[in-house]
């Protein structure tokens, strides 16, 4: 007599330790095997796009902090670049370099959180996360020096940055950049050669090249699948064309590649920071002459950057008033997680969790 089995539904989230916020997955399981996946988003919807319509261009900057709250600085940069493109504002040289340094620091910090929590999803009881946090803490201290904030910075301004670097910032940054490769080596020692980790993540949750391109994935998720696409190289915004760095790519697009690409990107970010520190003008203005209630000309524009999690874009429609007529945010992780079903079906519950963890999602950005 053949054994008859019956599938059942399992709600993962919105309250679940591994959904990185309030994400919800409605799974159909056959025993432990995932048969069907239905991602449900929207639990952290705060209407940022609508709120932006009633605020001045400067007042929107704190709202962008709340998008990807693990990489607030790059959110600020993306928005400011879009507004500058719209209004044709030229950013002072020194401010450009400060932006680059800070974006790359933010990328390191964001990738550290991604790698640490990915390991946590694999079941390593918080040790990798806490080691990652040790270094992330130093980055947060650097940001604390800049603007007195540790999570939601509101540091960028349209036309530059809100204040110049304090005197002790660059020595502290130098120390951090010098020490960091040693710590990355330490993390690799802890994580990379662990047999259980390899068994868990190699070949799991493969996102093929074609699928990744078809869904419009970006960031480390796309690069892990073997597509060499980085906006910093392909369409250099700001002053990224002045730096020499590589774009690491993965081979097969499994969870291991997504982890490893992030580690390699941290090293590349350090390279960019080192070059930026050398090239940066010693003094000069850090903000262009932009009035508080400035009115960009009528029109629309789309500004985008390579944020830590992918291609982050701001689409702004201006009607010539002090507030945008419409602001739309293009969130990279929302696009990336559209591939979840392709990646998860056929794997076990435990794999489902680590596949989701390897995507490195932040719900603030997905739900906006």
């Amino acid at each position, binding site marked *: 007599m053949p054994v008859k089995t019956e599938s059942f539904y399992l709600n993962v989230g919105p309250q679940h330790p591994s959904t990185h916020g309030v994400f919800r997955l409605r799974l159909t399981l056959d025993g432990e095997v995932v048969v069907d996946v239905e991602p449900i988003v929207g639990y952290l919807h705060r209407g940022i796009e609508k709120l932006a319509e009633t605020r001045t261009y400067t007042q929107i900057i704190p709202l962008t902090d709340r998008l990807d709250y693990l990489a607030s600085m790059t959110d600020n940069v993306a928005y400011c670049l879009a507004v500058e493109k719209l209004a044709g504002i030229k950013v002072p040289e020194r401010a450009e370099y400060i932006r680059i340094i800070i974006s790359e620091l933010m990328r390191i910090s964001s990738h550290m959180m991604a790698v640490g929590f990915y390991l946590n999803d694999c079941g390593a009881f918080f040790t990798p996360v806490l080691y990652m946090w040790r270094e992330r803490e130093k980055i947060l201290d650097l940001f604390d020096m800049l603007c007195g904030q540790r999570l939601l910075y509101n540091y960028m301004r349209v036309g530059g940055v809100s204040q110049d670097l304090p005197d002790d910032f660059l020595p502290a940054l130098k120390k951090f950049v010098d020490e960091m490769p040693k710590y990355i080596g330490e993390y690799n020692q802890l994580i990379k050669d662990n047999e259980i980790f390899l068994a868990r993540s190699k070949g799991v949750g493969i996102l093929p090249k074609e699928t990744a391109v078809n869904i419009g994935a970006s960031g480390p998720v796309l690069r892990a699948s073997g597509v060499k696409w980085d906006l910093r190289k392909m369409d250099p915004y700001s002053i990224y064309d002045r730096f020499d760095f590589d774009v690491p790519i993965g081979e097969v697009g499994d969870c291991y590649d997504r982890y490893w690409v992030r580690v390699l990107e941290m090293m590349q970010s350090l390279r960019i920071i080192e070059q930026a520190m050398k090239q940066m003008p010693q003094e000069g203005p850090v903000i262009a002459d932009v009035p508080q209630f400035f009115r960009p000309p009528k029109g629309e524009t789309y500004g985008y950057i390579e944020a830590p999690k992918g291609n982050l874009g701001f689409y702004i429609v201006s009607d010539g008033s002090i507030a945008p007529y419409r602001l739309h945010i293009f969130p990279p992780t929302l696009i990336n997680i559209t591939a979840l079903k392709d990646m998860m079906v056929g794997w*076990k519950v435990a794999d489902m969790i680590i596949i989701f963890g390897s995507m490195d999602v932040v719900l603030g950005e997905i739900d906006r």
Partner: protein
Amino acid sequence: MTLLDQFQLFLKGLGWPEWAWYAVPAIVGILVIIVFVLTIVIVFIWWERRLISRFQIRLGPNRCGPEGIFQPIATAVKILLKEDIVPDKADKLIHFLAPIIVFMPILLIFAVIPISQGAVLVDLNVGIVYVIAISSISVIGIFMAAWGSANKYSYISGMRSIAQMVSYELPVVLSLVGVALVAGSFSTVKIVEAQGIPFILMMPLGFMIFFLGSLAEMNRSPFDLLEADSEIVAGYHIEYSGMKFAMFYLGEYGVALAYAGIITTLFLSGWQGPLLPPVIWFIVKVMLVFSVIVWIRSTVPRFRVDQLMSFAWKCMLPLAVINLIIIAIEVLAIPAALQWVMIIVNFAAAGLLVLLWSRLFTLGGGRVEV
């Protein structure tokens, strides 16, 4: 003469009736075991939290008393004051009984563990068999909790628990048979006395298999699939709160203590040791084993469920069988005076086999077509 015999003689001397010679030592022994287990469990909870925070470059609880030693007591008070929630759809009786059935066998294991010379509640001649039989009862309790909670997460956990416990029981038992062969007895007291050289040196492979198997039996990392907090939240005890949850919590550390005690007794020469009193040696060894368990927990990620099963059936079971065969041959061939030969042969065999398996063995599994 054991402590028990001395106690009976003392009662006879007082002129107590004959039934009291047996009843009073039994009750006193049970009380001593409960107090001993609960005290060490509290120390374990504190020790795990402090030690794991050291591994994780943080301080851990250090406010409540010197070095945070009273933190487990504060935790216990907190848990006791919590509301006892029973899910509406739960099977009330099974939901109520499960924590008791999980916790009770752990206390029973201690009846045969010699804490010091002669300090054992009952010296069964089938001590190891008794330990294996009793420790398997916990699975039933875990499955009752999982099933009785009427929760899908705990249901998955319950299914995992049966598969895991049954698979890992086999290599554990087979590695224990090796111990019994060398010691020539199933009695835990005799096994301790037989260890002039600790058995960890005589049968390193057997120790490794038993240690990993017992990690799986006590649901410790990397085999903590039953309560995998990142996957199935808390597994079988997801719907428990208050005192019932405390029973699971105590059970989790109690079983760690029990297995640490068994490992100490069977492989680390029990209470034997120079200079210090035997009880201290026993506790030091138990803490050492527990520290290694905590170390492993803080370092490695978790297996997936199919990898867990293939590790048990494709790696540990064949190794346990080969280990048993090697030891059986050695017991027949090598005279007792030449035990150091056995050490060399077994270390060589263990190294060779582990190397072989690490090359040839694959966990397999992967994507399933649906």
